[in-house]
Every structure is written in structure tokens, then in C-alpha cells.
């Protein structure tokens, strides 16, 4: 059993731990990926991914963070498979920041998100493991005076079958470290996999079931003080005045300091800091966003649904086809701002001492953390140390380093004292980077036989790419983060067009689990249902018909139809109530997910009884974790669909805690059944793709049950029969 307790380690410590004594093997990978380098404490090789110590422990520096999605199991398992060790031999730590760990996108980036961890590193991780194994074999073969080709491995040992000799990796490590990494290594045949493709146990369950798993909030450093913060309630506002003297006598208070856009009280204990902050007289300059209201923004984007915008996709001639259609339908949709609501509120600990800055930060992008710290302290990146513990949820929130900036700003003023900034739930809810409020108009035309001949989509809104990663936009008019999940859809309709209308929003927006797919799947899959209805067809059969040339999608649809024993009509269930099903099919992050939701109404509230889910992610590296992520993604999407919405009045977020921003309760949790299809197509992501289809599946079921179309979320906003 793995007992990972503290996952945060500096580069120095990594080399220190694995380089203790003479017998050590540290394998580094020179980037661009492909060439390997031996590393030892002397030559300053900094990009070591694995180290083997005398006792056979293999330390693995994971470039991906663990925030629930299983990267501390699936990623090391890929290495362990090729290196040929037991999972229990692994000691997993988080890699530091720096170019040496940028193993994504041609060695240019490293972050945890976009459902990319496994699929972006699968080949690299296999090669890392296989290369180390080859070096261990080579050392043993030399020792024994036999050809390397006669040697093989068993977990943790090199063996020479004909002579019956065996030697442990720990014993061989020192000599293996002196071998040159081979340029080419054979990879295992998939039929020999022990770990990849198997439902191996998570490595972090023990730590997480005993309370020993270290989260950012748990950081404790000698001499540490605590900070509570209050940011301008109107986003973009700034502190006008505050009366420090009024609270300096409160218990434990040490200092009151300004931070970007807010004020911090520093005290010996968090509770003292927070209590004093509540009493601190402070006024804010509300700034230019003081009139922002989500309702007005919604009206504004709704008024632009017929704008020409930028045509992102065009096939055939939509305008002519719609004009000549025997029947047309049109529907407008919108989806609200959403908060991430990670269970662990934003926090960060920082210390600036001896020309170095150490940052303990739950984060999804260590390089952004380091860059933030460097820019505030003026220190070079090499003097910044980022320590990444377990994350109490991420969902895209922890890409943005606003909370890091606060801690480093304070640490910079505290003369070497470490300081932990912790947000209250209220701060966390009101100072998030929200899933953008977005609207869309869908129009379809049918011929005389009810066949769809045209589909015209207009999406209006703003997106996190433009806001946070403008450099990643290949076309300045086109923000993929707004239209992902609407563009290039498989449904075979001869005339198609997608227009994107950019409508800048003043509110803070960010990456919310599944990003553009989160709203686009709702719009698109609800409209597919409306089209099926207009064509007089069963919604599942209608989709199937439009996917004639897309067997992979059809297979997912067929599987979820079979699994759910699909019913296109309401029926009376065992509980005596009328139940109905709804279906949605959506591809995101290279993964296809089909979901069927079975619902009923209880006192005007939607009750989701069961969700049937079929996923094709190419190949499931760990089927158990794929299943967990399906359950997780469905929960997250269902939570949003039923009751989540962030509203903004006078530039201020209205919701504050779980009583006003309700997340799914255990009592609302449906049964979930998951089936995995291994199509052996390219690897797809797993952390996000289950989220998009659930909202439309539930809304479509509601239509079948009641005849009422839901075109705005959350459902708690719509008056339903029986309320």
C-alpha cells in the first residue's frame, strides 16, 4: 500500500532523497523529449523524473497534480508498467516548476487540466520507465557477463533465467546510473500489461482516509502567521480607506496590509485574523464595474443573437437551405455564470527569505505560480520554489494565481516570516473566475420528409481563452473556449453554419470543468431533441439516423440505449410515479460520452433517479478511475443543472456560501451505471467529458415527462408542474 503523506518536495530534496549514499539512480529526460540523461547531485541535471534508491524505492516526480482525478495513480502506473515495479515500490512527489517538466505540447507547457494528463504523457511516461529498465538490465548483464538480451525482469528484479540469477533494482541502481541511456527502447506489448488497462487501486486512498494527506490549507511552517482577506466586493474595485487602529488591539492581530484589490489582516491564528477583519472599518472604490448586472448582460447578448459575428464553421448554404425548407424551428438558450466551489477554499502559504521565495500553493500550473511570485518579488524564476500539495478540488479554478499573488505580496512585506492566506467560503464564492454566462440561437430546417437540411447556430459571449491565454488564440475573432462543443459536430446535416459573436463581459471569467462544452452540450443536445420532436422521431433514433457515417458515435448511442433499456415515452415506475428518460451524446477532449437520465417530478422539483453512462475514451488506462471520473463529472454537471447559478448585482456576486450556492447533496445523488468502450482510437481525456451531457439529458427527460422545454439553467429557475 502506498502511503503518500506529503507530496510536496523541492528539487533539492528530490535529488537529496534519492542521492543519499552512493547507490543512486536518477533518470532525467532532456527536452525536447527523446534524449535521456543520467542525473546526479553533481552535474546539476534538473529534470529527473525517476530516482531509484538502494532499498529499491522508486521516487517519481509527477508533473501532474492530484486533485481527485487520479493522476497519482494513473500516471505513475504507466511508468511502473514499463519499468516493471510494483506500485507499492513507488514514492510519488510533485515535480517542481521549470522548463524541465514541460512535457506537453512539444515540450512547451506543463499544467494539469484540459483532461490532458494521461493522454499528453502516455508515450513519454512509457519511455521513461522503459529506459530506466533497459539501463538496469544492462548493468546486471555486464555484472553477470551475459548478453543483455538474455536478461528479463520481474517486478523490482532483473533476472537471468538460464542461470537462475536475480538482482534487485536497488542493488543495481548505482551501476545502472553509470550506463548511458539507450537511444531506443522497446516498449511492452499491450498483451503483457499488468497495470495499464487494469483497475489498479488508487495510491492516495490511505493518506486520504487517515487525514494525513497534506492539502495547501494544512501547510504549517515554523514561525508562520495567518492572513484573512477581504477583496473589493465589486470586482475590479480597490481599497479606498481603512482604519487599522480600530482593530490592532483585537486578540492576536499583528498587521493590516493592502493586497491587490483588497485588504488583509495578519494574526497569530486564522480565527483571530478573520474575526478582526470582520471588525475592520474599510471602504472600497467600487470602480467602473459598479453597475454590472448579469441580467443586463444577458439581455445584451440576447439582443445580438441575429448578429453576423464571425463565421467559425460553414458547410453548404444555410441561408438558402433555411429559406427553402418545408419546416423550420428556432430556439434560444442561455446558461448562467457558475462558480467552481472547490471544497478546499483558495489558500496559499509563502515565505520570502535569503533571496528565495517558497510558495506552498494548491495549483494547476506550477509555472504560473512561479511567474507570479517572481514578478512580485523581483526574484529570478530559479529562486522561486513551488511546492504543490494535494488539491482539495481544482475544476479549472486553480489555473489562476490571484490567491498566490496575495500570499507572496504579504510575505514580501513580512521580512522572512511565512504567511498563510486562507479565504473564507464567502470570499471563495464571490471572487471566483466564473464559467461565462453565454447565450445561443439554434435554427433548423427540414425537408418535406422531415429530414434536417440546415442547422444555423449563433453563440454570443466571452471566453476564458481571450481573457487568460490570448496568445493561444490562432484567430483573434475566434475564441475556442466559447464554441468548443458546438463546432464540428458529427451530426450529418448538409448545410451548417456556426457564427460566434464576441460580447465582452466585465465579470471575471475562467475555465470551469469542460469549459465551452459545459454550455454548448446543453444548447446543442437540447436542440437535437427539439429537432427530433419536429421531425416526429424518437430522440435516440433521430440522433442515430444523423450519425450514419459515424459508427463510433452510433456505438456509444446503441450501448447507452441497451444499458438503459431506452424508453422514449413516460411510464409508471415502481414508486407509482411517472418517470421519463432523456438522452444526450457529446464528444469533448477526444472522448465520447452518451448519457441517459431517468427522472420524475417531486413537488415541482426534478428528481434524477438513475444515470446510464457509456464512455469511449479510446482506451481506459485505468477503468476504475475512468468510472470514478464519470460519476464525478456527472455529479458536477448535475449539480450545476439543478441549482447552481452566480448572479451579479451592482458589480457584486449575490451568492456567498453553500446555502445560497447549493451544490448537489448526497440525497440528490442518482444511481450511476458506467460502461466503458475501448475503441482503441486515440486516447481521450477523462476528467471532464462526463460533465457536458448530463444537463441536456435531464432537460430532455423533463420534456418527455411534461412537454415543457427547458432553455435556461439552472432548473431551479423554471416553474415545473407540481411546484
Amino acid at each position, binding site marked *: *500500500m502506498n502511503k503518500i503523506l506529503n507530496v510536496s518536495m523541492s528539487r533539492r530534496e528530490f535529488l537529496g532523497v534519492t542521492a543519499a549514499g552512493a547507490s543512486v539512480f536518477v533518470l532525467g529526460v532532456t527536452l525536447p523529449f527523446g534524449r535521456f540523461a543520467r542525473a546526479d547531485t553533481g552535474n546539476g541535471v534538473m529534470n529527473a523524473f525517476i530516482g531509484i534508491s538502494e532499498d529499491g524505492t522508486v521516487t517519481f516526480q509527477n508533473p501532474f497534480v*492530484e*486533485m*481527485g*482525478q*487520479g493522476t497519482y495513480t494513473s500516471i505513475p502506473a504507466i511508468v511502473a508498467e514499463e519499468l516493471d515495479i510494483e506500485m507499492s515500490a513507488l514514492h510519488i512527489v510533485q515535480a517542481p516548476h521549470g522548463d524541465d517538466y514541460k512535457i506537453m505540447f512539444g515540450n512547451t507547457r506543463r499544467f494539469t487540466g484540459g483532461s490532458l494528463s494521461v493522454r499528453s504523457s502516455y508515450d513519454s511516461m512509457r519511455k521513461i520507465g522503459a529506459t530506466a529498465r533497459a539501463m538496469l538490465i544492462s548493468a546486471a548483464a555486464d555484472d553477470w557477463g551475459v548478453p543483455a538480451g538474455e536478461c528479463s525482469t520481474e517486478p523490482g528484479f532483473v533476472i537471468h533465467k538460464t542461470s537462475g540469477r536475480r538482482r534487485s533494482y536497488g542493488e543495481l541502481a548505482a551501476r545502472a546510473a553509470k550506463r548511458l541511456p539507450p537511444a531506443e527502447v522497446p516498449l511492452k506489448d499491450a498483451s503483457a500489461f499488468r497495470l495499464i488497462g487494469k483497475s489498479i*487501486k*488508487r495510491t*492516495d*486512498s*490511505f*493518506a*486520504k*482516509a*487517515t*487525514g*494525513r*494527506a*497534506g*492539502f495547501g*490549507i*494544512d501547510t*504549517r511552517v515554523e514561525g508562520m502567521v*495567518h492572513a484573512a482577506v477581504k477583496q473589493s466586493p465589486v470586482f475590479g474595485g480597490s481599497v479606498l480607506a481603512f482604519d487599522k487602529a480600530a482593530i490592532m488591539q483585537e*486578540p492576536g492581530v499583528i498587521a493590516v496590509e493592502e493586497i491587490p484589490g483588497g485588504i488583509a489582516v495578519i494574526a497569530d*491564528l*486564522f*480565527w483571530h485574523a478573520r474575526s478582526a477583519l470582520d471588525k475592520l472599518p474599510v471602504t472600497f472604490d467600487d470602480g467602473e464595474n459598479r453597475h454590472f448586472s448579469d441580467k443586463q448582460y444577458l439581455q445584451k447578448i440576447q439582443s445580438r443573437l441575429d448578429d453576423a459575428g464571425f463565421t467559425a464553421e460553414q458547410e453548404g448554404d444555410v441561408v438558402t437551405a433555411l429559406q427553402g425548407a418545408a419546416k423550420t424551428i428556432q430556439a434560444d438558450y442561455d446558461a448562467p455564470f457558475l462558480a467552481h*466551489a*472547490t*471544497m*478546499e*477554499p483558495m489558500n496559499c502559504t509563502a515565505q520570502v527569505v535569503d533571496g528565495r521565495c517558497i510558495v506552498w500553493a494548491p495549483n494547476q500550473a506550477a509555472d504560473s505560480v512561479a511567474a507570479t511570485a517572481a514578478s512580485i518579488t523581483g526574484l529570478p524564476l530559479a529562486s522561486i520554489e513551488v511546492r504543490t500539495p*494535494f*488539491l*482539495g*478540488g*481544482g*475544476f479549472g479554478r486553480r489555473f489562476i494565481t490571484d490567491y498566490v499573488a496575495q500570499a507572496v505580496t504579504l510575505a514580501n512585506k513580512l521580512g522572512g516570516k511565512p504567511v498563510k492566506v*486562507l479565504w473564507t*467560503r464567502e470570499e471563495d464564492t464571490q471572487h471566483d473566475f466564473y464559467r461565462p454566462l453565454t447565450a445561443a440561437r439554434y435554427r433548423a430546417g427540414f425537408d418535406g420528409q422531415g429530414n434536417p437540411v440546415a442547422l444555423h447556430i449563433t453563440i454570443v459571449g466571452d471566453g476564458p481563452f481571450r481573457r487568460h491565454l490570448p496568445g493561444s488564440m490562432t484567430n483573434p475573432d475566434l475564441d475556442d473556449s466559447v464554441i468548443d462543443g458546438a463546432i464540428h459536430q458529427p451530426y450529418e446535416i448538409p448545410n451548417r453554419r456556426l457564427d460566434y459573436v464576441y460580447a465582452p463581459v466585465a465579470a471575471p471569467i475562467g475555465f470551469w470543468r469542460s469549459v465551452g462544452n459545459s454550455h454548448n452540450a446543453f444548447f446543442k443536445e437540447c436542440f437535437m431533441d427539439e429537432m427530433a420532436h419536429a421531425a416526429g422521431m424518437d430522440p435516440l433514433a433521430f440522433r442515430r439516423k444523423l450519425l450514419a457515417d459515424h459508427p463510433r458515435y452510433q456505438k456509444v448511442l446503441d450501448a447507452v440505449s441497451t444499458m438503459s433499456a431506452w424508453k422514449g415515452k413516460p411510464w409508471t415506475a415502481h414508486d407509482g410515479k411517472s418517470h421519463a428518460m432523456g438522452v444526450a451524446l457529446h464528444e469533448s477532449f477526444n472522448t465520447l460520452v452518451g448519457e441517459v437520465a431517468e427522472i420524475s417530478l417531486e413537488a415541482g422539483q426534478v428528481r434524477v433517479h438513475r444515470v446510464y453512462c457509456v464512455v469511449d475514451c479510446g482506451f481506459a488506462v485505468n477503468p*476504475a478511475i475512468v468510472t*470514478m471520473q464519470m*460519476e*464525478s*463529472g*456527472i*455529479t*458536477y454537471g448535475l449539480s450545476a443543472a439543478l441549482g447552481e447559478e452566480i448572479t451579479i448585482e451592482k458589480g457584486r456576486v449575490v451568492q456567498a*456560501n*453553500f*446555502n445560497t450556492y447549493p*451544490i*448537489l*447533496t*448526497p*440525497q440528490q*445523488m442518482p*444511481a*450511476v451505471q458506467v460502461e466503458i468502450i475501448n475503441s482503441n482510437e486515440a486516447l481521450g481525456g477523462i476528467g471532464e467529458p462526463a460533465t457536458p451531457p448530463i444537463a441536456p439529458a435531464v432537460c430532455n427527460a423533463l420534456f418527455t415527462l411534461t412537454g415543457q422545454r427547458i432553455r435556461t439553467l439552472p432548473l431551479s429557475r423554471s416553474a415545473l408542474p407540481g411546484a
Partner: protein
Amino acid sequence: MMTLVINGKTHEVDVEDSMPLLWVIRDVVGHTGTKFGCGMGLCGACSVHMDGKIVRSCITPISAAMGKAITTIEGLSTDGSHPVQKAWIEGDVPQCGYCQPGQIMAAAALLNENPTPTEAEIREKMINLCRCGSYLRIFAAVKRAAEIQGESS
């Protein structure tokens, strides 16, 4: 000075008696397994036992905890051997793991009161929030924990 008994150990703490038990446990005593999620008694991340009963420590002033036996996740067992922890590990319940100490304490308290809960009782009594969607695994693990506890008693 106030005297608190946490996990069988007596602690003298010098803080105001209105301070919530959560912050005394985490920042004064230094047991960080108990988590802060909402501070309003809404999520259960801060759940601990007081004389065997579940309480939400973020809204429990320490004045109310004096003279009571407080148990945190660290005190449930030192090695993960409590039936609930065993079931949690066996079922790979935690995802991000942040809510799980609270969930485990809630499950342990439930089994103290009712060693053989039905599925409906589990669904009714396990009310702590989990943002990662581990609910189905939590329900199954409580059931399994009841079995493990039954086998060993």
C-alpha cells in the same frame, strides 16, 4: 486557559472560549485532518466526535467542548484500521479527499448509533457535501464498514 481532551490527550489552550473548536484543533493543537469548508455548519468537512456524537466543529465554540471527549480523524485510529477507514480504502472512496475526514467521522458516528444501517438509513444520515461526487462510493463504503465491524465483533 482551557482544558480540552482531544484523541485521549489533554491540551491546555489559551484562547477565547468563543473560538470554534475547528480552529483550535487545526491551528492551536495542530491536527490538520479536520477540514474547513464553509464555516457555517453547511458542509460537514469539519465533522468530529464529541462524546461519540457527530458535531460540526466550525460552529462549536470550544466552551461547548470542555469536559467532552473529542475525537478527530487522527484519533479514529493511528493506522487506518478503523472499520470505516478500512472500507474507505478498500472502496477507493476519496477523490480529491478534502471532504473525506468529515465523511469518515460521520460514518463512524452513524455506525456507533446504528451498527447495521439499511441503505435508506445510510442515504438519509450521510449528509456531508462532496464536490467531487464520491457519494455513491460513500454509501457503499458505509455498508461495507458495517460488515467489517460486524465480522470483528
